[in-house]
């Protein structure tokens, strides 16, 4: 029925990490193939049909991406991915308008590539306000309104969080930014193709898009840059002046075509797929909650994409749980930081206590996730959480009625 069997070998674990990356949809690969071989031309070549064909492929893709977010195709530029898009959007506007404005507003739960770009800009003299988030992971709009000044050049707030899947109130943020005459940039890597986005209705001036989060290829992304009113950027990469001068370099035609195809598929299937995933998400949550006490959802459940769950399994350390559930590919914290022993900064920003943050797993559902896989995952999680709780001194204390907080632990 679906292409899952073509994608996953039988000896591989069930893939439940769709916020880390997604497999490429076979339809996307099919659209890309000709551009690797006989339609190999340089899309910037103007003197022969090889170039024209490649250009046609790229421009069709640009239109497909634009349509998905309600933009004009002239407003979409291709990049190497959302990390580059985020770097270019924030650094690009900051540098361009630095004579007039020197302030940036962002949030503490942004992706590292946004936070790190802001840190770098701080070192070159910009001021950055890192807005806290509420317990549910969403920003406080009044706090945002208060933070934006006449010196604020850009407000960068992610559309959907990569760890907890919560959806920020984009239209309301856009309205505030427009009133205050600050540009609104959103890192929409986790949102595009999953929730309806409209750059006009939401007053979005800059939007970062990723290919591999929407069943497209890795190594390609896009940045939406508004033309009316015009947003200007200093490019990060200079050279031949491609992509309206914002991003020089020969476009990778097959990757652009893949991103375009992925965008079109996502647009056509968003509604039905959203409903299907919401059912799977509810099924997984109910399956776990019915059989396991003391599990906690991190982040707002209502304002959330249906393909994400982030759950703390109290008294069971996340890494040991992942080691147990060998047949499931999930992550604890974000994939970028899961090599470190620190609990996730996103969960800490929500005010999740450290002991609970250590027990959290991120479970990502997606286009190729089946009901059967969800049921298998629930069984496996329940079995291992129970086993590890039997081994947990904290679970034992909790059962004996000892308050773990009353003990004076020696930090190490």
């Amino acid at each position, binding site marked *: 029925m679906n292409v899952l069997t073509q994608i996953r070998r039988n000896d591989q674990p069930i893939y439940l990490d769709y916020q880390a990356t997604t497999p490429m949809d076979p339809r996307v690969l099919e659209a890309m193939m000709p551009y690797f071989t006989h339609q190999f031309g340089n899309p910037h070549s103007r003197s022969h049909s090889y170039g024209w064909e490649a250009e046609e492929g790229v421009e069709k893709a640009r239109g497909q991406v634009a349509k998905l977010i309600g933009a004009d195709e002239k407003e979409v530029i291709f990049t190497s991915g959302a990390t580059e898009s985020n770097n270019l959007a924030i650094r690009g506007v900051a540098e361009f308008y630095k004579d007039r404005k020197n302030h940036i507003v962002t949030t503490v739960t942004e992706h590292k590539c946004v936070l790190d770009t802001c840190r770098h800009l701080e070192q070159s003299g910009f001021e950055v306000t890192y807005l806290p988030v509420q317990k549910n992971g969403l920003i406080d709009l009044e706090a945002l309104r208060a933070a934006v000044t006449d010196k604020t050049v850009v407000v960068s707030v992610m559309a959907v969080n990569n760890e907890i899947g919560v959806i920020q109130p984009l239209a309301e943020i856009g309205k505030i930014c427009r009133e205050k005459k600050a540009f609104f940039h959103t890192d929409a890597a986790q949102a595009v193709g999953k929730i309806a986005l409209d750059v006009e209705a939401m007053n979005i001036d800059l939007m970062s898009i990723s290919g591999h989060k929407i069943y497209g290829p890795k190594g390609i992304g896009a940045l939406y840059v508004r033309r009316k009113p015009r947003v200007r950027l200093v490019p990060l990469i200079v050279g031949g002046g491609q992509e309206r001068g914002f991003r020089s370099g020969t476009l990778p035609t097959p990757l652009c075509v893949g991103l375009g195809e992925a965008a079109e598929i996502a647009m056509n299937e968003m509604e039905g797929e959203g409903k299907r995933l919401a059912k799977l998400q509810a099924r997984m949550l109910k399956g776990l909650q019915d059989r396991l006490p003391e599990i906690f959802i991190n982040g707002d459940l209502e304002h959330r994409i249906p393909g994400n769950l982030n759950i703390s399994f109290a*008294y*069971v*350390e996340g*890494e*040991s749980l992942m*080691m*147990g559930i060998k047949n499931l590919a999930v992550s604890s914290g974000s994939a970028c930081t899961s*090599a470190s*022993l620190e*609990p996730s900064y996103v969960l800490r920003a929500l005010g999740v*206590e*450290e*002991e609970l943050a*250590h027990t959290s797993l991120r479970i990502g559902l997606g286009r190729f996730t089946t009901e059967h896989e969800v049921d298998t995952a629930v069984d496996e999680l329940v079995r291992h959480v129970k086993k590890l709780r*039997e*081994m*947990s*001194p*904290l*679970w*034992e204390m909790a059962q004996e009625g000892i308050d*773990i907080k009353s*003990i004076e*632990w*020696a*930090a*190490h």
Partner: protein
Amino acid sequence: MAYSDKLIDHYENPRNIGSLDKSSEDVGTGLVGAPACGDVMKLQIKVGADGLIEDAKFKTFGCGSAIASSSLVTEWVKGKTIDEAETIKNTDIAKHLALPPVKIHCSVLAEDAIKAAIADYRAKTKKAE
């Protein structure tokens, strides 16, 4: 991260999980680590009349390496005197399980847990005398 077969075996088939009566005179209990750091080990030893450790039990909240380290030391301390058990070094644990560098603290915690259990046992027997 690739773990050694020995480590995985101790994680999947942990030895001596459980609890001994912590109020008993011949049981020493060590509770080390902190929930906020992601590791808590409880290690208990039961010392026979002959001065040998006749039983050891553990419960651990922590990563697979922490679970394996505590499982391993319960095996090692059994049949030893408390003086002998006290000489178990974290480096031996780390070497036996081939712990990766970022997991060395798990073996340190396991050594601390034995020492804490022994200290508790000694404090009890001293009081009894």
